[in-house]
């Protein structure tokens, strides 16, 4: 594995993520759609503050979920199904290089999403985070962490399930996390049990962390720990179960 090889593969993976319309729908279409629609149309219980303040942390977390858990997972599952993974494993890129390239493409995609979501919120919706520039900086770090945690969980799916099942499961998880993770629905209006479950999901923890740092609030330690825990679990399981051929 050389830096040049990893970079070449990361560029290819990123181009492919940006090329597939199904992938763009989930990585950009749904998060931006949620952000714009629910700030303009007051149909959701968004808590006491203004809609953008409630929605931006959730949409950032949702974007990272869309890239790591859905788009990247589905792409990887089809790479595995088609034999591309197997072939790349025998090239000088190697399996380690492939994983680094894959995560690099996820980070690149997260960058595109963060710029668009924050751009729309700051410029289009006039949103200002209470935590200021420091909060924004911390949020970018939290988005990166969320994306990598989701990618670990996505690779766990892609490396063990068939491509079709990976698509179905990752989309189902995406929908469940969207509803329970505190993205568009205020956990305060959920039944207690569902709210509790939502809070310990990876997206629930990510949104808790993002909301905390953007509000400049303290006490995000538990959310951070939960998110890191999911990442450790996903990485551990994925590295032990991942299958390179179909």
């Amino acid at each position: 594995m050389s830096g040049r090889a990893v970079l070449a593969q990361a560029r290819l993976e990123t181009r492919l993520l940006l090329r597939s319309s199904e992938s763009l729908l989930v990585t950009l279409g749904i998060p931006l759609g949620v952000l714009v629609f629910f700030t303009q149309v007051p149909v959701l219980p968004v808590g006491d503050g203004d809609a953008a303040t409630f929605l931006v942390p959730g949409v950032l977390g949702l974007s990272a979920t869309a890239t790591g858990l859905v788009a990247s997972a589905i792409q990887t599952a089809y790479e595995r199904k088609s034999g591309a993974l197997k072939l790349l494993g025998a090239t000088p890129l190697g399996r380690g290089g492939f994983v680094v390239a894959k995560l690099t493409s996820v980070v690149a995609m997260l960058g595109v999403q963060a710029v668009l979501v924050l751009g729309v919120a700051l410029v289009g919706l006039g949103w200002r985070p209470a935590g200021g520039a420091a909060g924004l900086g911390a949020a970018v770090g939290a988005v990166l962490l969320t994306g990598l945690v989701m990618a670990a969980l996505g690779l766990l799916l892609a490396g063990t399930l068939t491509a079709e099942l990976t698509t179905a499961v990752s989309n189902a998880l995406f929908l469940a996390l969207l509803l329970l993770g505190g993205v568009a629905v205020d956990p305060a209006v959920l039944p207690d049990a569902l709210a509790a479950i939502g809070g310990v999901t990876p997206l629930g923890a990510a949104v808790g962390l993002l909301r905390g740092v953007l509000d400049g609030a303290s006490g995000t330690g538990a959310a951070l720990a939960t998110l890191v825990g999911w990442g450790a679990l996903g990485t551990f399981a994925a590295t032990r179960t991942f299958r390179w051929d179909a």
Partner: protein
Amino acid sequence: MAVIAVDGLVKRYGAVTAVDGLDLTVDAGETLALLGPNGAGKTTTVECLEGYRRPDAGTVRVLGLDPVADARALAPRIGVMLQEGGLYPHVRPAEMLHTVAAFHTDPEDPDALLAALGLDEVRDTRFRALSGGQQQRLALALALVGRPDVLFLDEPTAGLDPVARRTTWELLGERTRGGTTILLTTHLLDEAAAVADRVAIVDRGRLRMLGTPAELTAGGDGQVVVRTDPALDADRLAADLGVAVAPDGPPGSGRLRIASLATPELLTALAAHLRAEGAMLEELHGSGRTLEEVYLRLVDDPASRRADDPAVGA
């Protein structure tokens, strides 16, 4: 030193023994074809050499290296074309080939390779929109682009039309002349005869026969077919030549089949017979044993199958 060495290779999948004690060597610059029916263990053998599978017994070495333990050292020196040959549905041939070229320190020019394989026109077409033959040729280009010392090609021309097949053979010939060692699998007899220096016929995980195409087809009875005007009498010709002669084709065709190789002695005797009979030669051809005969005898013999297969006897 052998570039590829397979020594007592055994590979099982559950109760099925896919490769059952295979020995093979391939020398530098040599092209060896693994020829055999589906399920003969060809792909399993190649995948052990590519490092995808660990042998259950025996050893495999490529360039003196262990394909699994030394995978990193071996990767820059081998080119692999898998039987499935699939890629990302949305990827374009040019970008894929350029990407894989960037994995290597001294790659071939990807654009020249695309042109040589007739993929110029589809260089920016998405993979899923390519024809099966175009996908196949792209897979070959990906195996070639790193200038490998050793090429592993699993059914490289399956699904190709005759022209593309010939182009592929020529391309492989060029690489061999440049010193590349090639191990390919095929179930196409003409392919084995056309590209391979040596052919290994495998069946049910075992080596059945190994040699150059000439060695494999040597021996045997052969036959000479002759047609004359006027037609010759089969019995008189047989008496003159001292070998069996039988009518070939429908009565009245004037064609006779002589059970002999077309040796100079036979042809001299035949010419003398024609002169004595005052007959004009209209058609004459001789043939020895074909690779197809050898192959079918080895892999399609129900008697040998029963004797070798304990499952059937039980």
